[in-house]
């Protein structure tokens, strides 16, 4: 449940953002980012559908690598 995934913002409409991670698109809420509003192209850490913090592209990529490994090694 605490697994958070870095995503890149591709579009913003109010508090809703369209985000992408490795070709997968999701709607993400920016409601918790009001003190530091992100922009299109920014990377955010997404947890249960909400962006919880901005991050750099390099950090996003190292987390994606880790998630790939975890998913490969987890049965089912």
């Amino acid at each position: 449940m605490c697994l958070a995934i870095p995503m890149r913002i591709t579009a913003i409409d109010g508090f809703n953002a369209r985000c992408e991670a490795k070709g997968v698109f999701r709607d993400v809420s920016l409601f918790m980012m009001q003190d530091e509003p992100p922009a299109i192209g920014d990377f955010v850490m997404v947890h249960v559908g909400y962006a919880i913090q901005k991050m750099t592209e390099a950090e996003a990529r190292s987390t994606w690598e880790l998630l790939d490994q975890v998913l490969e090694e987890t049965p089912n």
Partner: protein
Amino acid sequence: MNTESEARQWLERIRALGIDRPVRLMNVCGGHERSITQAGLRGALPANVELIPGPGCPVCVCPEEDVYQAIRLALDEKVTLVAFGDMLRVPVNVPKGEVRSLVEAQATGADVRPIASPTEARRVALEHPDRQVVFFAAGFETTTAPVAAMIAEGIPDNLSILLSGRLTWPAVAMLLDSETPGFDCLVAPGHVSTVMGPEEWQFVIDRHGLPTAVAGFTPESLLAAFYSVLRQLQSGERFLDNCYREVAHAGGNATARRLLDATLDVVDANWRGIGVIPRSGYALKPAHAGADARLRFPDHTDPDRRRAGQMPPGCDCARVVLGRLYPNQCRLYGSACTPRTPVGPCMVSDEGACRIWWAGGVREAAPVAVTDPI
């Protein structure tokens, strides 16, 4: 430098410290435990450095009575019950033949749906304005903050929340205040710190003098945190280190903290199999009482129900959660209890230490008596 050589370098630094006595590092996050297990970090560290999974699984400590109430709401009140997927398979203590999990309730025709986000709970309620929708929300701060955001943003009248939100630090404080904390250093959770701020863990140093470092989820970040706390232990120096600086910023996420404060109160709360921990849970503020499923529907919990609130018979989840036992020291691990037929919540949840160890390939029981403390 690539990540693999960075990890190797941290391991070399850890070895070079020459730790000459047993040291126990506790993590309190299912995500940490998963990375540790999947990357095989336990085997890579010096043999006298133990990594103990502690209270890092909100599903595991969600009160059995709350799961029972959710099942009864779905069956007796005929609500649409939505919950994070992990909660659906957690069994409650009822006689054989009775519905013992939300997924079993679903199989008998109840409207139970797994969701991945509070925004989905709102969507389900908007799509079915003629139905009562209850969001059974268990989680630590990282998950409860989005629930607070959903409440603050405004929810449809037919949506209510059965909240089982918990704070992580009070469980660590309870362990540290006990006679046998069971660990020498703390690896603090990365995403709880992202939301609440790393400072939440300063008390571990100030009040208890234990080396503490916030870690992220890559092996490099975890190894950096292990190195930090071990070096602190060797040098006698104490400071709250942050090895997840890129995401866990000082002060946390200001919006998230404000939303939590605006919508929820911090209250004494029950942890399954452990008991009440002071100021360790969240409850809806009176201003949002209208969205509280505990007030909207009758209380179906029955204190006279056999084993109400307890872990299942023979299940050692409570001691696994507290880091008193390793998962494979439970007598049910891998025999009566597997991910296919889980008995305790630690084998159900993706964040439960038992399930993580099983997925990581640990198949055999530990060669020690269950009564041996770690």
